């Protein structure tokens, strides 16, 4: 049998010049049971290639892979609102501490001072009059009443320096 054609194909194969069809011919040739002795040494190479050719992804490959993906459940880590608000709590705590210290300082200073604002909260005071002149008349009248009341209570002008002593 003339194996010249096969040898030529082999030559071209080593030179990487064979077409896919020619490579298929080579593989078919080397699948024969009986090969000439000088070509027998190449059988394992083409057997391997044939085996690799048949070793393709099956039709059910995609299905299997998708099945595996579905099985692998990726669990999202859920952070609770409390956890997410933690930076806010910290910031609020810092602000609260500063505010508390500020208020405590202000309170201690204002208690030391003689200002009546230290004792009273005038925020709720809603004026009954919009005209200062009308308010003035009311205040003047009230002052006169208090003045008379103090006089009735026995306070004389000359004793005014001691009026604090008469507070029971």
């Amino acid at each position: 049998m003339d194996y010249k054609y096969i040898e030529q194909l082999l030559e071209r194969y080593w030179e990487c010049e064979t077409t896919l069809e020619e490579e298929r011919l080579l593989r078919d040739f080397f699948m024969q049971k009986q090969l000439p002795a000088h070509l027998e040494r190449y059988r394992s190479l083409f057997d391997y290639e044939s085996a690799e050719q048949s070793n393709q992804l099956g039709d059910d490959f995609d299905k299997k892979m998708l099945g595996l993906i579905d099985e692998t459940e990726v669990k999202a880590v859920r952070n609770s609102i409390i956890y997410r608000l933690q930076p806010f709590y910290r910031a609020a705590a810092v602000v609260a501490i500063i505010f508390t210290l500020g208020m405590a300082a202000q309170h201690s200073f204002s208690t030391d001072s003689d200002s009546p604002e230290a004792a009273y909260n005038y925020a709720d005071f809603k004026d009954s009059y919009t005209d200062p002149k009308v308010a003035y008349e009311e205040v003047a009248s009230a002052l006169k009443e208090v003045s008379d009341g103090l006089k009735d209570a026995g306070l004389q002008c000359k004793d005014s320096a001691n009026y604090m002593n008469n507070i029971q």
Partner: protein
Amino acid sequence: MKKLLVICLLIITSNSLLKAEVDFVGLLVSDIKAGENSEKEGYKCITVSPSMMEKMLDMMPSNDAQESAQIRKVLPHIKSLRIFNSQEEEAEEYGKEAITLLDKNKDKYKPYNASKKETKSKIWLRKNKDKVVEIVMLIQNENDFKIVNFTGSMTTEFVTELLKM
């Protein structure tokens, strides 16, 4: 951290509550509103706030009559005025309620009577250190009850000038 925040909030709340003092008329009105007579409201309340007091001071002319000049000396010592007035049948009831309230707050309000004689009007004073910060005057007539309630910083000089009025 949360505990710390809660503690701070509690301190702030208690601090602000401690600061929120009200004058006597304010106390009485709250007491009336919380009590059985809440629906009757047979009283009138007049308020002159610190801001109005300032406006009054700005408004006053520098050269004025004797009385106005005297008021000008007294006004800077006063922060606010509240007048409670009842001419209704509840007047007597409100009078008793005011006396009860003053008695309840006797650690704050001290009765003032130099002569120890019985008078138509009765005065209570509230002190803060060496200054009087509140004057409460109760005037009880047959069908009329009135409270004049000043707050401010009422020193001896204030009283001296007030008595000249």
